């Protein structure tokens, strides 16, 4: 692991879990891939290969600079560019909360991928609950935006997300809950600030 990768993983603890769950040599699709750092890491460390989808001009340019395949497409209009089952794994890291058509995207992810990995900030974390209890919208490291200027439109808790998975017939294969980079096993919906789910299609 080089210095660049160490810095990346320190800044984004969910990526450690995501990288662990991606099989060597897998074909991956990273939705909302930012500057392509995760894809580059997966390629260098696991020989996992794929494409990023990103809408922001600056991020798209950064991906090209990083020599990462990037497709400038709007996730809100679905994943029609991709065929059924064309990826081993579809990743949506810390982007779920900013998606409008959440259900549609979840379905699409498991149409084009055999598995999906989704990470998101846990709105059930005690700090968020405390701030709401004190009469304020939560602002934290995972939720850094003031209420009037935030890309986030669909915040949820661990339990809410699990409900949605059940509703969509999505199977939860694994779950990792983190707080400040450490795994949280006791009272995760209260103590975890960041959740990572590995999802699969339910058996027909």
């Amino acid at each position, binding site marked *: 692991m080089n210095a660049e990768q160490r810095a990346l993983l320190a800044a984004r603890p969910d990526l450690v879990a995501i990288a662990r769950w991606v099989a060597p040599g897998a*074909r991956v699709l990273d939705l909302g891939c930012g500057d392509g750092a995760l894809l580059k890491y997966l390629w260098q460390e696991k020989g996992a290969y794929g*494409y990023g989808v990103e809408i922001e*001009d600056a991020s*798209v*340019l950064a*991906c*090209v*600079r990083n*020599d990462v*395949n*990037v*497709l*400038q*497409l709007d996730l809100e209009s679905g994943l*029609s*560019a*991709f*065929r059924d089952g*064309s990826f081993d794994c579809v990743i949506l890291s810390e982007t779920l909360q900013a998606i409008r058509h959440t259900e549609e995207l979840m379905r699409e992810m498991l149409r084009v991928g055999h598995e999906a990995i989704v990470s998101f900030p846990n709105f059930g974390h005690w700090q968020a609950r405390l701030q709401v209890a004190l009469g304020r919208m939560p602002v934290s490291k995972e939720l850094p935006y003031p209420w009037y200027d935030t890309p986030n439109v669909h915040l949820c808790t661990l339990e809410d997300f699990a409900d949605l998975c059940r509703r969509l017939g999505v199977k939860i294969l694994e779950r990792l809950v983190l707080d400040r980079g450490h795994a949280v096993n006791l009272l995760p919906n209260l103590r975890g600030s960041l959740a990572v789910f590995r999802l699969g299609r339910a058996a027909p």
Partner: protein
Amino acid sequence: MNAPQLPPDSVGIVEAKKATFTEPLPLKGGAVLPEFELVYETYGELNAARSNAVLVCHALNASHHVAGRYAEDPASIGWWDNLVGPGKPLDTRKFFVLGSNYIGSCFGSTGPASLNRATGRPWGADFPVVTVEDWVAAQARLADHLGIERFAAAIGGSLGAMQALQWTLSFPERIRHSIVIAATPKLSAQNIAFNEVARQAIMTDPDFHGGHYYEKGVVPRRGLRIARMIGHITYLSNDAMMEKFGRLLRNKAGFGFDFDIDFEIESYLRYQADKFADYFDANTYLRITKALDYYDPAAAHEGDLAAALAPAKASFLVVSFTSDWRFTPSSSRAIVRALLDNRRIVSYLEIDAPHGHDAFLMDDPRYFGALRAYFDNIVR
């Protein structure tokens, strides 16, 4: 008077060269060109491994004169001079850049105005209808002539993009990267309709003489002018036109209540039309618009573009522009989808630019930034 100093990132004074090919070239339409010439320009140096050549394919009204200028004419700046030069996104300190003309052109390669040895007269209407595939086949001969076994990249916009794409299908082993800008895998009915209006304008001009106007000493200028006006409208977006001209009047005093120029846009179109009719050939225009209309690699695969692109081995960068209503982003996305189906390496940029189809000629920082980064990675 001294010529103005060329900026340091210009390739400088350039000269067109000409290569002659005596082996007959079979064309897609069934005709055979017994021999042909291609004009081209090169910038930068071919490295010892002959691995740094980049082919620049031009669109309808451009030519092999991609960058720099000619000694005798300070105004003769190459059509993609903002892209190609020392320190520019396609950096001639690293790459050997080849600007190639195509057969059927009016810029010096064998075309309708060339002498037909069989008759001793200009080809005129008898010059065959050529296709994108034919152009690529002819360019491959030029690559052989220059000792280029494999291009680092081919790049083109619009009709040039069709060539950059076709290279990966006709000669998959000879091209590492294909940069396909403002492209379409086939023309829409509306595109073909515009081309047909342009052709009708030319062919109904009394000076056209069925294509044999060279011998009569006339040029179907009226037809060419109208063809250019129509084309030009489709290269610009309505927003870009409104921004540039709006409803500005030539004469600030008001309407003339006659059929002279009232609006600035009319003046602009007439100016562009005159300029075009001075340098472009009507027979060439007819053939190029047909080449555009005919291009459809999926046609031989029952419309399945993924099957058509299966031979491609290159890595791709595909770029479209949101305001391009001639070749829309959805056309580019169809190419991307077909490449994904074939598991090709591909990146796709959809640049939110207001200029319409002509955006591919502008140095938008996002667009040129991506081209620079892409070329930097090729050379690395």
